[in-house]
Every structure is written in C-alpha cells, then in structure tokens.
C-alpha cells in the first residue's frame, strides 16, 4: 500500500498553528505518510513542529466558505490573537492527540482542508503494523545491529543464582504453541517437566500457566502469575496444575492466591468457562479476592478525567465533582493497595503468592510490577526499572497494540482499549512523590513512557506479544526504546539526582490524602504548571551542582 494514495494535498502554505504553551504561528504545513510537519519561518526564527500521525486520537473539522460574503466579513476575519484570516474559504482542523495535546490548524482553502483532514484520518489509524513508523525510523546515531532490548529471561535466570536450586528455565514455549502470549522462555519449578506444563496450559485461560515473576532474596518466597483456571461450571480440575502449585510452596505451609476479581465476578466466570481455585483442590492456598477495575471501565474513567481537565469553566465545584465521578484516583488507590497487599504477603508474612485475574495480562501485571518496586531495590534504578518493564509488560505479553490503540479523545468505537499501562505509570509517580529519594529515575521518564506507549518512533511497544514481534521482525527492523533512553545524553535527563540506594522496602501510603492527581501528565499542557517545572529544574540543577562539589572535594578532606 502506498502512502501517497492517501495524500491528495501534501503541502499547504499560510497555515496558522495554535498549540498550547506557544504563541500561534503562521507557516507551511506538510503531510507525509507518518508525520505532520509545520515550519514557521516568521521573525527570523525557524520553528518546526513535527507530529507523529499515530499520536492523533481524533480530529474535528469545520469549514467556512466566505467567498460569497467576503465584503461583509473582511474585518471580522481578524481573530483574537491578531493573526488575520484571509477572506475566502478556509477550514479549521482541531487535532486531539493521544498525549492530550490539542492543536488547531487554520488552513486556507476548503478543499485543501478537507484533503488534509481525510489524509490524517486514514494515516493515523493504519491497520497493518508493518506500515507503522518504527519500521521507517532511522536515527543517525544508531545502527539496526545494535543490541535490542535490555535483558532476556535466559539472562535473568542465569544471573539469579538463588533460583538454580529449585527452579528451572523451560523452553516449552519456544515456538509459541503452548502459550501465544508468553515469551519463549519461562521460569517454572524444577519438578515440573514440559509435558506437565503443556497440560497446565490447557487448563488456564489463553494458555497462561503459572510462571515465576519475582524471587524475594530475603526469604526465598516467590510471586507467580497466571490467568484464571478454566474450571467451568462442571468444576473441572487439573492434577498437573495442582502439582505445579504444590511444588511452588514446597517447604512452606501455605501460599496466597490474589485474585483481582471480586468473589461474585470469579464465581460468575464459571458460567463462561473460567473459574477460581477451589478450596478442596488447592487446600494449602488461601485465596484473597481484591476487585480491580480493568477494560472498558478503566478507559471510561480516563475519558471522564481528561474531560474534567479540559473543562474551561474554572468552577471549583464542577472540577471536584467531575474528578470524583471519573474515579481515576480510586483506581490508583486500589492498584497501590493491592500491590501493597501482595508485597506484604511476601515480605512481611513470608509466603509465596500466585496472582491472577481473568486473562492475566492487565491487573496481574500491574500489581506484580508495583510489588517488585516496593520490595526490590534493584528495580528502582533507571536500568532496573526499564528492565522490569521489559520483563513484566513487554515480554510478558501485555497487549499494547490493543490497549493503546486509542486514548481519551477518540471518537472511535472502543474495542480493547484500556489505559492499564498509564495507570501503572501513575502509581509509580505516586511512589516517587512519597519516596523522592528512593527511585533512580525522574518524572520525565514516566511522561516519556506514557507518550511512547501510544505513539512511538521505536518498536518496543509494537504488537501484543513476543510472537507478533518475532513474526514482524521487530528486532531486526526497528530500534529499541529502552536502549535509546539509556544513551548518555538522554539518561541524564531521566535519572533522579536525589537517588540514594537503600535495601529497605518502600511501603506507600494509600490514604486518599496521600494520593494526588498526576498533574505532570493530565495537566501537562496548561500554562501555569510551568512555574512548578521551573522550580523543579532549579532543584535538579542545585542538587547536581552541590553533589559534584561535595564529591570533588571529598578526597581532599580525607
């Protein structure tokens, strides 16, 4: 498919661009297969705005045909900002992006305006993944043969010597036939062989059998994750599944199962073939039900929140009631609270835990990631955090393509969209606010990741699982986001100069008063937050300066 088929008008002169936090500018607009490019040549300064078409959630167009009334309206063509619109037909395209920016383009010429709008509409939601920009992006300072990804499960396993005693690396899924959404290698108890794993995979939704995701060095307890057991209405059981779980808590008296559904949802799941682990078959396991919202409800929550942030009325009561109705902060609270419970079971209570919801690809990954941040200091450095995300989200099969197809502004009919990854980043931000010295990365990293998940130059978040990425040749034909973020110039901006390593766990407070709206993301494009950004930049610079000074005089003082 040729991109040029969709572009009837490629260049338009004399376009006015209005974007948040900048004065309006007049220049040339170009549309390519993947980008909108606006060049502003006024006042001697050259300003370029490059927008990835994939970042566009929705557009609205309005066309005015002033040809017949040019005499009457030639003065009324002056808009508030003093940039005059030429009399004649023109159109306005309002672009709402997935990173919550809203841009406005005033395009002279009705036909050009409609052509551009149509091109944007088609090119911003391309179906085929191999046509997306990461396959075309070629930065000058990197090579396709560079290392892709930060680590693999094989390397993770070989580095963790404590695992070699009772756990093994299984490649039963090397051709993705056992579980299409798992990676090719998984960590399972030594006593379970590959045949058993195949049988267990048939008993779990989507083939997501229980695998190890975290080993707690302090007490040898583990976190396993899976999807729901397919007991169905007939109360089927699977001996291999029970044996696998028994092998997990071998040596300990019991284990916990954290089910991210309410008891009612779990019981109802039986009607559609799913279910839960019954007490009779899994007697050594205690089940804790913690309902976590996911799917459409979470997407609607995001939509309401973004709508509240965009409300122009500046009325305090309306703001507070809209915020409350969105329930976004209660989802943040539930996520942190359940993750805290998970960490409590492992660290304070000293027992292994199995986590699952229904599909095991959303809230399961959310709380396993947060619990590891709470308990494991090595996940809190910049590299550690990116490796954690790579392992627990990218490799573990979170369906990014489906979940991040559209964000809050989209008019399209929602299918599988859900801002679970955004919720994770919000929860990490809450952790960072409560423990500003304990995380080695800054808020800038979280904001960057929030944008990249929805629209990216890199191939890291493409596709829904490792199988799709292998089929498309993502490793060979695109660049890796995580490697790019760790390059020397970039990583300065993403690391936290106040970071201090500590071996302790960080227990977040989940009192409502301790949680705040993530203004860095949701209010990113409002003018006033700039003062706060300036202050934060000031703090960063101060800390870096003093840090350097103190370090450089330390040998002198000894």
């Amino acid at each position, binding site marked *: 498919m040729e991109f040029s088929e969709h572009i009837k008008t490629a260049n338009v002169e004399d376009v006015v661009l209005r974007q948040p936090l900048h004065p309006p500018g007049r220049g040339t607009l170009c549309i390519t297969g993947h980008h909108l490019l606006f060049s502003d040549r006024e006042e001697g300064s050259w300003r370029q705005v490059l927008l990835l078409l994939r970042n566009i959630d929705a557009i609205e167009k309005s066309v005015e045909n002033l040809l017949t009334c040019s005499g009457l309206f030639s003065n009324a063509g002056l808009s508030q900002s003093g940039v005059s619109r030429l009399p004649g037909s023109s159109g306005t395209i309002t672009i709402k992006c997935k990173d919550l920016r809203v841009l406005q383009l005033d395009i002279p010429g009705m036909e050009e305006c409609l052509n551009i709008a149509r091109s944007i509409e088609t090119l911003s939601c391309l179906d085929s993944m191999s046509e997306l920009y990461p396959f075309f992006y070629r930065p000058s300072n990197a090579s396709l043969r560079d290392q892709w990804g930060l680590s693999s499960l094989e390397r993770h396993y070989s580095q963790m010597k404590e695992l070699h005693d009772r756990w093994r690396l299984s490649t039963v899924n090397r051709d993705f036939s056992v579980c299409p959404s798992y990676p090719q290698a998984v960590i399972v108890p030594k006593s379970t062989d590959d045949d058993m794993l195949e049988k267990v995979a048939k008993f779990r939704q989507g083939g997501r059998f229980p695998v190890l995701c975290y080993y707690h060095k302090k007490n040898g307890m583990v976190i396993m994750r899976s999807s729901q057991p397919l007991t169905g209405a007939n109360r089927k059981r699977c001996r291999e599944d029970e044996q696998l779980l028994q092998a997990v808590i071998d040596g300990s008296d019991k284990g916990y199962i954290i089910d991210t559904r309410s008891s009612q949802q779990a019981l109802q799941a039986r009607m559609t073939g799913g279910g839960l682990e019954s007490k009779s078959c899994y007697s050594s396991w205690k089940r*804790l039900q*913690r309902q976590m919202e996911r799917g459409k409800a979470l997407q609607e929550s995001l939509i309401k929140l973004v709508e509240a*942030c965009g409300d122009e009325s500046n009325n*305090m009561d309306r*703001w*507070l*009631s809209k*915020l*409350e109705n969105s*329930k976004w902060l*209660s989802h943040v*609270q539930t996520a942190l*609270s*359940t993750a*805290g*419970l998970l960490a*409590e079971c492992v660290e*304070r*209570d000293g027992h292994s835990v199995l986590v699952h919801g229904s599909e095991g690809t959303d809230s399961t990954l959310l709380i396993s990631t947060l619990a590891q941040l709470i308990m494991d200091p090595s996940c809190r450095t910049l590299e550690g955090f990116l490796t954690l995300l790579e392992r627990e989200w990218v490799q573990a099969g979170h369906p990014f393509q489906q979940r991040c197809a559209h964000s809050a502004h989209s008019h399209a009919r929602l299918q599988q969209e859900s801002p679970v990854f955004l919720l994770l980043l919000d929860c990490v931000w809450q952790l960072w606010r*409560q*423990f*500003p*010295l*304990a995380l080695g990365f800054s808020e800038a990293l979280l904001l960057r990741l929030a944008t990249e998940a929805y629209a990216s130059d890199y191939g890291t978040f493409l596709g829904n699982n490792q199988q799709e990425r292998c089929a498309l040749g993502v490793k060979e034909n695109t660049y890796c986001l995580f490697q790019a973020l760790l390059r020397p110039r970039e990583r300065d901006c993403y690391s936290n100069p*106040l970071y201090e*390593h*500590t*071996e*302790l*766990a*960080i*227990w*977040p*407070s*989940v*009192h*409502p*008063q*301790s*949680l*705040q*709206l993530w203004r860095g993301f949701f209010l990113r494009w*409002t003018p006033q*937050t700039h003062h706060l950004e300036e*202050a934060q930049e*000031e*703090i960063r610079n*101060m800390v870096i*300066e*003093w*840090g350097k*000074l*103190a370090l*450089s*005089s*330390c*040998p*002198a*003082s*000894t």
Partner: protein
Amino acid sequence: MSERENYLNPFYSPAYSKAHPVLQPSTLPYHFKFWRNMYHQFDRSMHPRQSILKTVLNLREEGRKAESALQALENRLLQLGVTPVVTSDPPAPPPTRDQHCNTLPARPDSLILGAPINHKEVERQEEEFDQEEVGEEATESTDTERSVEGSSGTDSRKQSYGELDGTYSSELAKEEPAAVSLEFGVARMTC
C-alpha cells in the same frame, strides 16, 4: 540561629522577585492542593517518608563545608608556595554515597522508610491492626478528592493493605525500628 534555618526557604531567590514583582497565582480549580502537612500534621503514616527539602538543605550544608575545606586547603598550598592545580575531574574515583556519608554527620531522620515511629506508636498500631483495613476504606470513601479537599480527620494507623490472618506478629513490628537504626547508624525516630 538554628531555629531561623528551619523557617527559611532554600529556593528563595531575590532575583526572582525582581523579575516577577507581582505574583500571579493561578485560580484554576485543579491547581489548588490540599494542605496535608497542616491538616494531618500528626498523622505520620500519611506523610511522604522522604523529604526533598531536608535532603537539599543537607546538601547545601555539605556543599558549604566542602567549599570552605577546599578554600582552606588552597590557602595552605599557597602558604607552602605551591600553586594549586585546578582540575575539573576528581583525582580519585568518586566514592559511593554510602562511603561519602560516613565522613559526614549522621544522616537525618528524613530517610527512614516505612518504619513505625516509636514503640508507643507501634503498640497503639497493633491495637488498631485488627480494625478496619484499607481495603474497606477504598469502598467506604466513595469521594476521593472531595474527602481530600474537605477532609475529616482520620487517625494515624499502621499502613496495612488487607487482612492477613494476624500472622503479622508483634515481634515483627518491633523489629522494624531496630533494623532501621542499625542501617542508618544514629537515626532519630521522629519524622
């Protein structure tokens, strides 16, 4: 004198006041924040357990000391008749933060993480442990930000995330402060 230090803002810059003679605070509704430090002054479990302000103040103090040490050494070198060589890189590999801090005064209490504050409070929290958990709290407080803005006082309770059958014993609870004090040397148990 030290009292005054407590009330100063280290980020205050007179140059900023010259550049912005009139402050223009935003009155947009989402810029108003709940003043938690005021209304929950005594609810220790709610406060951020690490304070940027204290760290920055300490760094500034260390920076000052380092500068004066540097100055003294340069003067000494001049006295000895050696011109000091100014290098931008430290001659030795920079020590880790831990080593670095061993040569400096004990870390402030702001870096205590997640531990209950003192024994009295630990005992009080154990009594409250069997009471209402946070899991229920989430469904109870249907208003989230509203309860933040117009808060009703909640008493400080141990941050527990759910019921765990009381296997979390009192010994474990008492151990935590001890573990923290061993890590951080002299650690004052106030927040």
